[in-house]
C-alpha cells in the first residue's frame, strides 16, 4: 500500500522508545486540583460553583462562555476552595477553579441515560458538548463546534489523526493499542452525524502494530478504512493530514470543512465514545511523562487539574537536573519555567530534557542554503519571511504569504545557522492578526 504524505517536513530524533512499551497507569492526584477556565480555543468558560460548595466527580463546574467555547467538569469529588488566578502552561495567569479532593471519587449522574442507538443527532451533539470535549491534540478547539459545520451533507471524510508525529509522545499510541474498540466506535458515532462521510484512521507507519490492530478491528466495516502515513513531522498537522489523505489543499483562510473534512485527534475520538456510550464527561487524559532527565518514563491516565510536579514524582523523579521542561512535544510544546501548573484537557506530555538545544547554539548569519525552503510544509521561503518579520516589514511579509505559516517549526529545526525563524514569523503573525482584529 502506498504511503500517504505531503512535501516537506523533517525527521527529528523521535525518542518514543523511552515510553512506548509502558502500559497506561492510572494516577490518583494527591494535592488540590486546578481547572483553568480557559483551556480551549475560544471564549473562556464561566464558573458556576462557589467557594465552599461540594462537587461530585464529573459535575459541571463551569459552563461554555460563548458559541466557540467548552464547559469544564470536575475530575474528582470534593470542595471548591476558591477561584483565583494561577499560572498555566503558557505562562499566563488565568482564572482557575480550585477543588480540594476528598478522595471518595463520588460520581455525579451520567450525562445521559439513553444508549447511543436511542439518541438523535442533536442529542449526540448535546452530550459531546456537555462532556466538555475539546481537541486533545494540543490546540483545544471545542469538538461539538467542529462537528456542527454549516453544511454537514458536504462532509465526505472524517479523519482520525492517529499520526502522533511529535517526537517523544506515546499517549495516542498506547490508547490505540489498549482501547482500539473505543476508538473505532467513537469514529462510528461521528460517522452517524455525517451521512455522506467515510471514516479514515490515519496512522504513521512507525506504528505498524497499531495499523495491523486497527485494520483487524475495522475489517468488514464499509465506511471505515485505515491509512498508513509516511513517518515525518508535521504529518499530524491538520492541513498536511487532509492533503495526505484526500489530496485536497486548504489555506489559512479555509476550514477543514471547506475541503469536506473533519479532523479529530485519537484521544478526542475516544472521549466522544466515552461520553456517548457511558455518559462520562472528559475528566481524564493520557499524559506521557518522558525525556532523558526522567528516571522512569511512563504513560499516565491523569485526572485533569492534577499538578505536573506530582507526575514527576510518580515517574521516579529526575535522574539529572533537567535543563528544559516542556508541556507537550519538543516541536510544538510549551517550555515551562515552573512545574507547578495543572494538567489540562490538551496536555499530552511532560517532557524533561537534560540539555537545552536552543541555548546550546548561538544564531549566526543566514547563508541562504535553502534547507528551510525544502522542509516547509506550507511551501514558503521561511528565511526571507523571517527576515521581513524581524524588520516588521508587513507588506513584504504578506507578499511572501507569511500568514500561510502553520508554525510547525521545521525551519528553525533544520537551520544550520540556528536562526530563530519560526519565532520571528510567529511574532509577526500575532501582530498582523491583532491588527486585523482591531479593524
Amino acid at each position, binding site marked *: 500500500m502506498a504511503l500517504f504524505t505531503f512535501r516537506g517536513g523533517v525527521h527529528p530524533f523521535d525518542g518514543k522508545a523511552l515510553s512506548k512499551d509502558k502500559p497506561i497507569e492510572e494516577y490518583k492526584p494527591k494535592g488540590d486540583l486546578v481547572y483553568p477556565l480557559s483551556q480551549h480555543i475560544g471564549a473562556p468558560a464561566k464558573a458556576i460553583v462557589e467557594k465552599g460548595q461540594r462537587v461530585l466527580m464529573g459535575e459541571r463546574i463551569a459552563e461554555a462562555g460563548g458559541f466557540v467555547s467548552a464547559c469544564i467538569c470536575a475530575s474528582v469529588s470534593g470542595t471548591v476552595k476558591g477561584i483565583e488566578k494561577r499560572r498555566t502552561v503558557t505562562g499566563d495567569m488565568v482564572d482557575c477553579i480550585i477543588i480540594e479532593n476528598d478522595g471518595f471519587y463520588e460520581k455525579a449522574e451520567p450525562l445521559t441515560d439513553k444508549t447511543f442507538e436511542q439518541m438523535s443527532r442533536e442529542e449526540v451533539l448535546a452530550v459531546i458538548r456537555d462532556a466538555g470535549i475539546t481537541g486533545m491534540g494540543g490546540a483545544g478547539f471545542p469538538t461539538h463546534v467542529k462537528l456542527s459545520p454549516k453544511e454537514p451533507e458536504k462532509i465526505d471524510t472524517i479523519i482520525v489523526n492517529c499520526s502522533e508525529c511529535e517526537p517523544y509522545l506515546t499517549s495516542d499510541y498506547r490508547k490505540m493499542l489498549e482501547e482500539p474498540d473505543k476508538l473505532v466506535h467513537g469514529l462510528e458515532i461521528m460517522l452517524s452525524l455525517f451521512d455522506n462521510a467515510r471514516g479514515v484512521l490515519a496512522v504513521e507507519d512507525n506504528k505498524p502494530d497499531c495499523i495491523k490492530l486497527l485494520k483487524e478491528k475495522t475489517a468488514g466495516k464499509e465506511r471505515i478504512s485505515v491509512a498508513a502515513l509516511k513517518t515525518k513531522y508535521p504529518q499530524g498537522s491538520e492541513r498536511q493530514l487532509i492533503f495526505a489523505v484526500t489530496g485536497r489543499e486548504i489555506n489559512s483562510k479555509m476550514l477543514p470543512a471547506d475541503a469536506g473534512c473533519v479532523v479529530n485527534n485519537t484521544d478526542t475520538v475516544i472521549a466522544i465514545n466515552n461520553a456517548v456510550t457511558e455518559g462520562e464527561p472528559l475528566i481524564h487524559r493520557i499524559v506521557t511523562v518522558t525525556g532523558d532527565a526522567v528516571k522512569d518514563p511512563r504513560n499516565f491516565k491523569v485526572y485533569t487539574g492534577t499538578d505536573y510536579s506530582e507526575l514527576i514524582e510518580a515517574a521516579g523523579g529526575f535522574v539529572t537536573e*533537567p*535543563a528544559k521542561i516542556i508541556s507537550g512535544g*519538543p516541536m510544538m510544546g510549551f*517550555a515551562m519555567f515552573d512545574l507547578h501548573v495543572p494538567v489540562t484537557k490538551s496536555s499530552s506530555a511532560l517532557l524533561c530534557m537534560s540539555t537545552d538545544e536552543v541555548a*546550546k547554539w548561538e544564531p549566526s548569519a543566514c547563508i541562504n542554503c535553502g534547507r528551510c*525552503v525544502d522542509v516547509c510544509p506550507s511551501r*514558503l521561503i521561511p528565511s*526571507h519571511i523571517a527576515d521581513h518579520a524581524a524588520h516588521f516589514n508587513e507588506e513584504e511579509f504578506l507578499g*511572501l504569504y507569511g500568514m500561510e505559516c502553520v508554525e510547525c517549526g521545521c525551519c528553525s529545526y533544520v537551520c*544550520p545557522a540556528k536562526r530563530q525563524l519560526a519565532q520571528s514569523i510567529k511574532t509577526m503573525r500575532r501582530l498582523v492578526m491583532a491588527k486585523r482584529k482591531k479593524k
Partner: protein
Amino acid sequence: MSDTENKEKTAGEKMKETAQLLKSVSPTPHVRDKVSTSYLMGMVIAALMPAEIYGIWHFGPRALIITLISIACCIFFEWGFDKIIKKKSTVGDLSCVVTGLLLAMNLPVAVPLWIPVIGAFVAIVVVKMLFGGLGQNFMNPALGARCFLVLSFARYMTDFSYKPGWGGADVVSSATPLARLKAGESVDLMQMFIGNEGGTIGETSAVALLLGGVFLIACSVITWHVSLCYIVSLLAFTAVFGGRGFDITYLGGQLYGGGLMLGAFFMATDYVTRPITRKGQVIYGIFLGILTGIFRVFGPGAEGVSYAIIIGNLIVPLIEKITVPRHFGYKKPAKEVA
C-alpha cells in the same frame, strides 16, 4: 537577634532555591538538527580535496604553497576585519577557508606569491566583509577576486606554464585545452578527464571534481539543480552554435575543460549567491550555461565560466522575484473574490 538572622538566611536560601528551580524557556521548536554552518562548509572543503590533492600532485609543491598562502590570508583578513570593526570573529564558520581554497584553485601555478595575498584581500574584505559578511555578499568572493586579478594582472593570470610533478625540470607551456579547441586543434579527452593538462591549480581534473560534486549531492549539501542545468544547457548551446555539431571531442572538451566542473559544482552552487528556490535554481543554471556558451563560442577568449557565474550572481535577485513559490493551498485570486 540570631533568630531573625537565621530566618533571613533561610528566606534568602529559599529564594535561591526557587531561582534554581526555574527552567529556561524559549519558543518552539525546542530541538535542533545537528547540521551547522561549519559542518556544511567542512563538507565543501572535504569535497574539494580530491581536486586539490590532484592539483598539488600534478603541478608540484608550488601549488601547495599558493593554496596555503591563500587560505591563511583569507582567515587573517576575516579575523582582522572583525577585530577592527569590533565584531565577534566569524572565522569559526569556515566559510573563509572555503573561499581561500577556491581562490587558490582558480589561480595558475606560476603566479607570483603576492597574487594570492591580493586575491584574498579582494575576496574577503572587498567582496564579502564590506557588504556585511557571510550571507550578504552579492557575488561569490573567490570568483570576484579571480576576475579582479585577471583584469589587473592579466600577464600572470594567463600564464599557464608549469613544471609537471614534484621533480619535473622541463617547463611545459602549452595553451589550455579549451584554447586549443578554439583554435581548431584537437584534444585528448582522456587526459582532460584525468586532468593531465595545463590550467589553474584546481580546475584540470574533471574526474576529481565530479567525485567531489557527486559527494556533495549525495550528502545533500547541495542539490543537482544548478549543476546539472548549467552543464546540460552549456553542452546544448555549444552543440548548436559551436560550429562543430555533435562532435564528441569538441563537446567533451567543452565539458571537461575551462573550469566548468569547478564552476558548476562548487561556485555556481554557492548558497549565498544562487537563488533559494528549486525553480529559481533551474533558471539560474540554464542562464549560466547559455552565458558561458556565448563567452566560449563568440567571445574573444576561450573561457567564460567565471564571468558567467559573476553575471549570474547579479541577476539572482531578479530571479528570486519571479520565482516566489505558490504556498500550500494556493487558490487563484479570482476565485477568492467570487
